[in-house]
C-alpha cells in the first residue's frame, strides 16, 4: 500500500483523471473532495461489502436449514409470544402498530 502524508488543501492524483483533495482534517475524520469522470462510480466500502453479502444472503435455504436455524435461534427468544402468529399455525405479517387495535 502506498502511504503518503498530506495536509488540508493539498491534493493527489490517481492516473490523470482522478483528483482527491484533502478539504478538512478533524480529530477523527477527514473530509475529501473527489474529482473524477462520471463513468467512475464512487461508493463507500461498507456499501460494497454489504452488497456482496446481500447477494450471498439472497440464495435460498433448504427446508432442513430453515428448521435448523429456527431451532438454533429459538432458545434465545424472550417469553414474549405476542408475535407468534395465530392459533391455527398460519403465517403472520408484520403490520403497523395502529392496525393491531
Amino acid at each position, binding site marked *: 500500500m502506498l502511504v503518503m502524508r498530506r495536509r488540508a488543501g493539498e491534493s493527489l492524483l490517481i492516473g490523470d483523471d482522478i483528483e482527491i483533495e484533502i478539504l478538512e482534517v478533524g480529530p477523527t475524520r477527514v473530509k475529501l473532495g473527489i474529482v473524477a469522470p462520471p463513468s467512475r462510480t464512487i461508493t463507500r466500502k461498507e456499501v460494497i461489502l454489504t452488497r456482496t453479502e446481500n447477494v450471498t444472503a439472497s*440464495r435460498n435455504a433448504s427446508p432442513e436449514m430453515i428448521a435448523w436455524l429456527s431451532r438454533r435461534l429459538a432458545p434465545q427468544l424472550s417469553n414474549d409470544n405476542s408475535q407468534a402468529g395465530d392459533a391455527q399455525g398460519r403465517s403472520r405479517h408484520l403490520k403497523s402498530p395502529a392496525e393491531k387495535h
Partner: protein
Amino acid sequence: MPKLSTVYFPELEYTNDSIFDFPVGIPGFEDQIAFLFVEQPATRPLVFMQSLLNARLCFLAVPVLTVDPQYRLNLSSEDRATLGLDAEGPLQIGRDIACFVLLTVSEDTSPTVNMMSPIVINLRSRKGVQAIPTASEYSLRHPLVPEKETVPCS
C-alpha cells in the same frame, strides 16, 4: 386478497397494509422497493423478508435482539429521513421501529448474520432501509454457531 407464490410459501396472502416501502431498495437489489415481513409459528424467530416485485427473492432475517439483546442501533440522518423519523432523539427497537439482521447460509461456511448492516423498518410510516453505518463495531459475518458445531447442508 392478493397472493404471491414464493419460494418458501406456495400461496402467500397479503394485504396492502403489510407492505413496507424501501425507497432505495437495498445494496445489490436497488430495484426491489417493496417487501413483506412474514413469520410463522413453526419457524420462529425467523422472519421471511419477501420481495413483492420478485417472488423468487426472499431473505431470511431474524430480530436483531434475539442475536444480541444489547445491540446498539446507529442510524444516519439520511436513514432517519428515509424512515420518516426525527433527525435526533433516542430510538427504541420494538416501539416504533423493528430491526432485523439478514442471515447468510452458504455451502462453504456455517451460517452468519450481518450485524453490521441491519434492516430497519418504521412500523408507523411502513418505510424500510438497510442501515450501513460508516464505522460499525459489528461484524458483517457474525457466526451463529461456534466453529466446531456441525451444520446441515444449506
